[in-house]
C-alpha cells in the first residue's frame, strides 16, 4: 500500500513537471525563434491507397524542406503536420481535429477524391482552406466552395487530352477515322474506374464511336480470364483500361497466359504507369500507353526545376520517385507557399486571394504546368495530363509535343 502511494506520487510529479516544461516552451515564442507556420497534411498512409498516398506526401515534404532550407517564408519555417487519412471517415475526423484542436487553417492533401471531398467539406464549414494536389474527380471543385483550391487537372481535363491523342495519333496510326476504330473498355468498378468510363461513354455516344465491348470488374478480383476471353471474341484494335495496380498486372499476365495478343493498350492512370507494374510484367509492358500526372521523362526545355526535384527526392528518400504523384504535390506545395508568401499572412481568405492573383505560364514549373486559378471554382486552368509509354523499361512522355521526350513506338 505504501509502495503504491509513493509510486503514484512519483508518477504525478513527473507528469506535472512535463506539463510545466511544455507550457514554458510555448511562452518563449516572443523574442527568439519565430513561430512556425503549421500546415496540416491529409494523405492515406495506410490501407490500399498507401503506396501512392505516401508517394504524394513525399513531394510536398521535398517542397517544404526546400523552402525551410532558405529560411522559410519571411523567416518563418513551415511545419508540416502529417496525419493518416486512410478512408473518408478518417479524413473527416482528422480534418476536424486539425482545424478545431490544433488550430490549423491551411490543409493540403490528398491523392484520392474519396478523401478530398469530405476533408474540404469540413474546411468549408470551419472556414479553413484545403489545397488539393492530386485527386482528379471533377466534383471536388464543383461545389461552389470558397475553401478549396486544386492545382492538378481534373478527370475531364484528362479526357480532352486523351481524345486528342486518340484522334491525332492512334487513329492516324491505324489509318482510320476515330469513329471506325474498334474500341474495348475495361475498367475497375469503384468511383475511380466508373467515373472515367461514364464520361468517356457519353462522349463516345455523341461522336458515334464503335465500342465493341465494355467490361467493368472488381479491382480485388483474383481472376480476369473472363475479360481476356471476351476480348478475344470482340477483337478490338484499341483497349482502354482503367485499373489499379494489382488488376493491371493481372490483366496483362492473364492475356499472355491465355494466348491473347493485346492490341494498343491505353491505361487511364492508376496502375499502368507505376514502376511496380513494369517490374511485375517485364517485357509485356513494352508499348503500353498511359494517361498520367506528369512523370519524369519530360522535355527539359519545358520543365524548369525538374532535375533539381528528382535529385532532392533521391537525397531525402534514397530511391527514385515511384510515380509522378510526388512531383504534382511538389509543384502544388510550391504554389501554396508562393501564395502564402505573397499574402504575407496565413489566414485562409488572404491566402486564397493571393492564389487567385498568381499567373505562371506553362513550362515554368518542374512538371511543365502553369498556374491560373479559376475565381469561381478554385481549379487551376493550366495543369495538364500527359500521355506516356513504356519503352525499354522506361516511362517516356510521348504527348503533347511540348513535353514529349521521344516519339511513340508501335508494336507489331
Amino acid at each position: 500500500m505504501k509502495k503504491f502511494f509513493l509510486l503514484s506520487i512519483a508518477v504525478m510529479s513527473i507528469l506535472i513537471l512535463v506539463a510545466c516544461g511544455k507550457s514554458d516552451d510555448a511562452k518563449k515564442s516572443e523574442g527568439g525563434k519565430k513561430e512556425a507556420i503549421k500546415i496540416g497534411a491529409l494523405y492515406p498512409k495506410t490501407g490500399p491507397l498507401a503506396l501512392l498516398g505516401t508517394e504524394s506526401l513525399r513531394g510536398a515534404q521535398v517542397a517544404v524542406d526546400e523552402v525551410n532550407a532558405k529560411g522559410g517564408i519571411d523567416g518563418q519555417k513551415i511545419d508540416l503536420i502529417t496525419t493518416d487519412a486512410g478512408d473518408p471517415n478518417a479524413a473527416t475526423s482528422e480534418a476536424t481535429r486539425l482545424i478545431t484542436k490544433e488550430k490549423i487553417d491551411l490543409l493540403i492533401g490528398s491523392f484520392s477524391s474519396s478523401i478530398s471531398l469530405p476533408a474540404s467539406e469540413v474546411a468549408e464549414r470551419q472556414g479553413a482552406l484545403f489545397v488539393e494536389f492530386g485527386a482528379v474527380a471533377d466534383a471536388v471543385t464543383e461545389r461552389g466552395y470558397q475553401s478549396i483550391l486544386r492545382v492538378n487537372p481534373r478527370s475531364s481535363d484528362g479526357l480532352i487530352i486523351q481524345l486528342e491523342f486518340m484522334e491525332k495519333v492512334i487513329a492516324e496510326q491505324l489509318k482510320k477515322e476515330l469513329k471506325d476504330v474498334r474500341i474495348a473498355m475495361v475498367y475497375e468498378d469503384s468511383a475511380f474506374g466508373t467515373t472515367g468510363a461514364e464520361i468517356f461513354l457519353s462522349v463516345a455516344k455523341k461522336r458515334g464511336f464503335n465500342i465493341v465491348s465494355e467490361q467493368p470488374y472488381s479491382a480485388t478480383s483474383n481472376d480476369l480470364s473472363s475479360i481476356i476471353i471476351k476480348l478475344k471474341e470482340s477483337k478490338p484494335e484499341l483497349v482502354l483500361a482503367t485499373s489499379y495496380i494489382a488488376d493491371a498486372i493481372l490483366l496483362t499476365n492473364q492475356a499472355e497466359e491465355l494466348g491473347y495478343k493485346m492490341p494498343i493498350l491505353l491505361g487511364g492512370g492508376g496502375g499502368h504507369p507505376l514502376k511496380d507494374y513494369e517490374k511485375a510484367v517485364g517485357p509485356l509492358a513494352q508499348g503500353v500507353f498511359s494517361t498520367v500526372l506528369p512523370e519524369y521523362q519530360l522535355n527539359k526545355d519545358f520543365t524548369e526545376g525538374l532535375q533539381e526535384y528528382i535529385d532532392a527526392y533521391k537525397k531525402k528518400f534514397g530511391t527514385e520517385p515511384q510515380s509522378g504523384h510526388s512531383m504534382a504535390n511538389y509543384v502544388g506545395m510550391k504554389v501554396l507557399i508562393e501564395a502564402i508568401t505573397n499574402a504575407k499572412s496565413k489566414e485562409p481568405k488572404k491566402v486564397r486571394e493571393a492564389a487567385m492573383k498568381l499567373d505562371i505560364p506553362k513550362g515554368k514549373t518542374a512538371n511543365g504546368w502553369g498556374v491560373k486559378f479559376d475565381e469561381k471554382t478554385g481549379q487551376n486552368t493550366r495543369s495538364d495530363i500527359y500521355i506516356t509509354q513504356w519503352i525499354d523499361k522506361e516511362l517516356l512522355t510521348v504527348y503533347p509535343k511540348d513535353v514529349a521526350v521521344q516519339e511513340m513506338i508501335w508494336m507489331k
Partner: protein
Amino acid sequence: MLLLQTLIAGLLLGGMYALISMGLNMILGVVRIINFAHGEFLMIAMYLSYLFFIWGNLDPYVSAILIVIILFFIGALTQKLLIEPIIDKPAPTKIFATLGLSIALQNLALMVFDANYLSVKTSYQTSVVTLFNLSISVPRLLAFVVAILVVIALYYFLQKTMVGRAIRAVSMQRTAAHLMGINVKRIYMVAFGIGTALVGVAGSMLLPIYSVFPTVGASFVLIAFVVVVLGGMGNMFGAFYGGLIIGVVESFAGVLISPGVKEIVYFIIFLLVLLIKPAGLFSKGKGSEEVGL
C-alpha cells in the same frame, strides 16, 4: 471452344481456391474457431517465398518445403499463445483476437515491406501449354496438381495415421476424445499448425502468379470462407470440390454475364446453400455446421 476455355480457366482458379481453403477447413473443423487472420498467414507465406527467392535464389516451388515447416510452427504458436488462453471465453473475445491478429499482421507487413507490390520473375511464369487451341497456364496447372496431391496426402494422413485419427476424433466430439486420453490441447496445436502449413503451400503456389502486398490476404480470405461453408466444414474433400465449384461458377459468370457480377453469382449460390443445406453441400450432416463459439 469459348466455353471449354472458360471451364478450364475456372477449374484452374478453383484449384487455387481449394488450396487456400483446405487450411481454413482444418482449423474451422477441428479447433472450431473462425480464423480471421487466415488471409494474413497466406500473405506471410507469400512474403517468405519472395524473400527466399530474393536472398537465396530459391525457386518458389522449392522453398515451399521450408515455408510449410515455418508456417506449421507459426500456426502452432498462434494456437498456443493466442487461442488456447481464450478457448473458453465468450465468442466476441475469440473474434476480436483473430481479427486483431489480422490487422496487426497487415500493418506489420506494411511497416516492414512498404505498400509496394512485389513479385518474382521465374522463367516458366508465363509459360502456356496449348492443347487444341486451348491455353493452360503452367503455374496455374502446377497449383491445381499440387492441390490434388494435398487432398490425397491429407486423406491418408487423416485416415491412416494415429495423429490423423486423433484429429478426426477431436473434431467429432471434443469431450469424448478427451476422455479417451487424447491430449486435446496438443491436437489443437497440430491441427492449427497443419491448417497454417496448408495455406503456406498455397502461398508458394500463388507467388509466381500474383504479386504480394500487405493486404493481399483480404482478397482471398472471403472466398476461402465461402468455399469452406459451401463444401461443408469438417470435410476435406468438401473444401476441394467447393473450391472447384466456386472457381468454375466465377469463370462462367464472368464470361456469360459480366465480369462485374462474378462475385454476386457465387455469393447468391452461397446464400442458397446456407438456406437449404446449411451444413454445406458435402457435409457430414447436421451438427457439423456448429462452430464452437
